[in-house]
């Protein structure tokens, strides 16, 4: 049998962006519907795991926006920093600030809450995605 699966390779290429899209949608909907940064992050983690199976650990890690540890750290940092603007304005830490962006046809509510949730998303994706990919990489040559 061929060492790699063409079906997996092909579909992974298709599924990875779809899953990431789903992850982002879940992230953005989270404030009002089931979902949120963590669940979205977990979906992204699954995507990374899929890619790790299809292309190997390094391939999966390369597909992350940053290397996993900086991604995770950056996510937590984003979460941490999302509470800081409030401090500067003299409110308690993590007091969330809201603003609406008029987009012409509709308006979009932006807030530090969203920033926080995005931080959660990246933290989970970076950390657990990295972990899953590394774990999958453990046996890459072990059978040989």
């Amino acid at each position: 049998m061929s060492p790699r699966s063409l079906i997996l390779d092909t579909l992974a290429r298709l599924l990875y962006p779809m899953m990431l899209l789903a992850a982002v949608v879940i992230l953005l909907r989270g404030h009002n519907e089931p979902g949120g940064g963590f669940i979205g992050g977990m979906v992204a983690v699954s995507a990374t795991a899929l890619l790790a199976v299809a292309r190997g650990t390094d391939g999966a890690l390369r597909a992350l926006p940053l290397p996993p540890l900086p991604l995770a750290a950056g996510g937590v940092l984003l979460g941490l920093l999302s509470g800081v603007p409030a401090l500067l304005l003299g409110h308690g830490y993590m007091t969330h600030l809201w603003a609406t962006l008029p987009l012409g046809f509709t308006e979009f509510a932006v807030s530090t809450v969203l920033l926080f949730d995005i931080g959660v998303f990246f933290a989970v994706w970076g950390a657990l995605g990295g972990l899953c990919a590394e774990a999958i990489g453990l046996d890459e040559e072990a059978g040989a």
Partner: protein
Amino acid sequence: MNALLATVVVTGTLLALALAMARLLRGPSQADRVVALDVVFSASVAMAAAAALATGRVLFLDVAVGLAVVGFVAAIVWARLIDKSPEDPR
């Protein structure tokens, strides 16, 4: 009607789950078990649908969507495990 259908779905799904569980425990090969796992995931999606039916709240279906998006990864990784395992564990 919704509630009735939900009950039907739950009953059938639980039956399927029980069967899958039994196969999972009996094996005999790893592949058998992972196949059973796949049924479990399908059953879970059905359960989410049943929950949506039972409560009449579509948001439970979001859980089913999520499951459909991620569930197969588990099966893939298990399959890969079996594929690479040194010998049949029978």
